């Protein structure tokens, strides 16, 4: 009897220890929770009836809102953000999501534990809306957002969701021209152009002649083989090397892997005749030994470029990363690139320089149902949209970040120097923000003008030229241009891009199969040794893609595009 009792006692003892540990943990949590450092949304002080504010209509008492970001370096402790607080009373506290932010958004939604301002993409905006986690903003904007309405102008209705209400705010683009730092996406080494006497390069054939002649004279760069035309295949980079050049060289607006025909039909690009002729161009390069032999390996393009071995490629500016800086640092400015639009033939009409009226489709600001005094958030956003707010957030503080010379705003020398020395200076000054889709702090676009007739952002042709080195200036001068953007055609406005829309769920499987078939067959096409082999490989790919459900996918995307355009027409009219 006693034996049994003792064993009971032991088991109980064990569980008591466990329980005690748990209890200790829980009670401990209360202590820490009270620490001032705890930063949950609950700790945001309510805007009380505090001090009388300067403007009678607006409450300027201090209030803190939380907002999510994936940018660890954002800080509210900066001159510009402090000024924002001074003007609106609002401070933002950043709630950092490192890594997989979608997972965090799901967890927040499941646990009703989100920041006051939630920066979400369109898909999650819908999820949050359906769960009632974010509030409609239309009435608040009517009451407190005159500047938001003014800046959006005729595009205001585009903000509206399918149900006619507004849930998310993002950038509007008030600029009528391409940003001065925009560039064409084909790149050619400036030395190649120089040696050929700066000829006009408008077509792929001209490009081919250029690199062929140059490689014959310079078969090696620093002891390694010169690469005539480079490309990459790793994951998404395949689209950049083997889909996007077809789009650009034919002058279409960028709709991802799809071409929108004049009649509204949407077609998968890699099986079109246009794709075939581009792959033929690559095949010609390959057979001449000019095409990158490692293009279909898992290498990235950046190392090759940094070595100065790549004469030409299709690579948008962001895709090059810092490799041009590396070339300059290595004392090879001639190996950096001219960024030009190049076309499949002489007759291409270029409509690729397209702009959308808003930054919808990216991240946007939504206001959570739990946020106290949501009108203060709208007032804050409204201030950002006002001309005063635009100047403050894009140009900075007068006398520190910019000066007014001859009635025009000019970026201060000090800031320019800092930008050359410290990559983080824009964080420290407060120019950076989070999740508004395009330019930070709801900027209205490079090249746009404010009511005072001056530019809304400091990024102008002159400021871009300042960042060029002498080699670049020389090349541009030879063509009679000031910036690379001068090579681009007129901007044309499109309602949006296909890739911004949520892909149709119904053809997800087909699309995956089709992309796989493309990836699998493409190397054979580009690397075929004869015309017959090329034709054979091409037919194999087209058949395999058709079998994978090409028609279904094209149909689904045609429908998606038609629906989007119908909505666009109706909202912009209404």
């Amino acid at each position, binding site marked *: 009897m006693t034996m049994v009792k003792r064993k009971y006692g032991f*088991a109980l003892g064990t569980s008591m220890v466990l329980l005690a540990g748990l209890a200790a943990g829980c009670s401990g*949590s209360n202590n820490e929770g009270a620490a001032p450092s705890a*930063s949950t949304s609950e700790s945001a002080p309510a805007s009380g009836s505090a001090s009388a504010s300067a403007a009678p209509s607006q409450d300027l008492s201090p209030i803190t809102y939380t907002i999510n970001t994936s940018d*660890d370096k954002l800080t509210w402790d900066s001159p510009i953000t402090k000024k924002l607080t001074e003007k609106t009373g609002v401070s933002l506290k950043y709630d950092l999501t490192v890594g997989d932010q979608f997972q965090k958004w799901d967890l927040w939604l499941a646990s009703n534990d989100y920041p006051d301002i939630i920066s979400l993409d369109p898909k999650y905006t819908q999820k949050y809306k359906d769960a009632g986690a974010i509030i409609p903003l239309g009435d608040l904007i009517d009451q407190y957002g005159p500047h938001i309405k003014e800046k959006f102008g005729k595009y205001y209705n585009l903000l509206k969701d399918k149900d006619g209400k507004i849930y998310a705010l993002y950038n509007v683009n008030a600029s009528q021209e391409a940003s001065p730092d925009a560039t064409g996406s084909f790149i050619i080494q400036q030395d190649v152009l120089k040696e050929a006497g700066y000829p006009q390069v408008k077509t792929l054939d001209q490009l081919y002649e250029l690199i062929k002649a140059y490689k014959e004279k310079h078969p090696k760069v620093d002891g390694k083989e010169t690469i005539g035309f480079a490309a990459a295949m790793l994951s998404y980079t395949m689209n950049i090397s083997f889909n996007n050049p077809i789009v650009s060289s034919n002058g279409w607006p960028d709709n991802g892997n799809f071409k929108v025909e004049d009649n509204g039909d949407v077609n998968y690009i890699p099986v079109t005749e246009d794709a075939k002729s581009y792959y033929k161009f690559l095949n010609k390069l390959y057979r001449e030994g000019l095409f990158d032999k490692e293009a279909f390996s898992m290498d990235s393009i950046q*190392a090759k470029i940094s070595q100065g071995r790549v004469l030409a490629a299709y690579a948008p500016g962001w895709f090059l990363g810092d490799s041009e800086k590396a070339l300059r640092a290595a004392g090879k400015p001639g190996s950096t690139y001219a960024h030009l639009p190049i076309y499949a033939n002489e007759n291409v009409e270029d409509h690729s320089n397209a702009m959308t009226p808003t930054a919808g489709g990216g991240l946007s600001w939504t206001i959570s149902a739990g946020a106290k005094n949501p009108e203060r958030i709208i007032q804050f956003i409204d201030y950002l949209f006002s001309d005063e707010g635009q100047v403050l957030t894009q140009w900075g503080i007068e006398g520190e970040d910019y000066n007014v010379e001859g009635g025009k705003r000019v970026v201060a020398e000090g800031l320019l120097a800092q*930008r050359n020395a410290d990559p983080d200076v*824009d964080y420290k000054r407060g120019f950076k923000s989070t999740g508004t889709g395009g330019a930070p702090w709801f900027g209205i676009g490079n090249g746009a003008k404010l009511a005072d007739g001056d530019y809304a952002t400091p990024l102008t042709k002159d400021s871009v030229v300042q960042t060029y080195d002498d080699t670049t200036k020389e090349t541009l001068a030879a063509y009679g241009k000031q910036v690379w953007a001068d090579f681009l055609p007129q901007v044309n406005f499109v309602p949006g891009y296909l890739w911004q829309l949520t892909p149709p769920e119904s053809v997800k499987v087909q699309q995956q199969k089709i992309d796989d078939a493309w990836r699998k067959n493409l190397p054979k096409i580009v690397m075929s040794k004869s015309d017959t082999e090329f034709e054979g490989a091409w037919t194999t790919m087209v058949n395999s893609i058709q079998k994978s459900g090409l028609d279904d996918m094209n149909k689904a995307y045609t429908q998606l595009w038609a629906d989007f355009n119908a909505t666009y027409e109706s909202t912009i009219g209404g």
Partner: protein
Amino acid sequence: MNRTRGDYAFNTLNYAFLTLLGFATVFPFLNLLAISLNDTLDTMRGGIYLLPRKWTLLNYEIIFRENGLLMAGVRSVIRTVLGTVLGLFCTTLLAYALSRKEFFLRKQLNAVLVLTMYINGGLIPTYLLIRNLHLMNHFAVYILPLLISVYNVIIMRSYFEQLPDGIIESAKIDGASDYQVLFRIVLQISLPVLSTIALFIAVMHWNSWFDNYLYASRNQNLSLLQYTLQKVLIQSANEIVSDNGHANIQAIRNNPESIRAAITMVVTLPILFVYPFLQKYFVKGITIGAMKE
């Protein structure tokens, strides 16, 4: 000791092979070391193997410049020590109880525990549980949910089970209580399994960052070393892309490859130095756990 020519040939080949194998294992690490000490723009050009081309400490500087890295390191150490001590204690108690045949709930409890190895709550339910326990943004979230790992309990239980019953019986006859038996007798002869489990738990605590990210990311004062370094890495990857949207910035950023290399050095070197001293227990412990009567 007569060695034939065959022996020599075998030895030579053997050593050559082992040297090659050793090199193949060490090379990636040395390569990372070289990259971490090489100028970031130079690294982009590729071709760094065993030695840095343009020596620099800047990559490390960037990591150590991160605010609160030192404190994050201290917290990681505290977490590891505290988590290991408490975890080992609780694991021991549970494993011992389960190893005793006279424990009346033995079978049922075993079944429940094993069940949790196959079925878990999933991310969102677990998150909600932690939240409802008020463990969010609290240091205890690093310790309490990880006190018991069933895997460790099973290893330890198996070890206890194969101890001769006679030892325990004779101790009881001499009047020892259950606690005395456990702490005075059983644990004294279980050093190998204890050190193995301690090492398991310690490594798990040292490496873990996911609970920091999920449950404690809103409190900067709870950031651990791994999470802080993760932030530095992701940030550097994001910036390379975002900078190119803002042509103004001409200053050079360190590319993620260099930073990743430096971070790898910072997190692995401490463990690397401790490992040789614990390795003998490590290997022994696992085989002990695998033994079954």
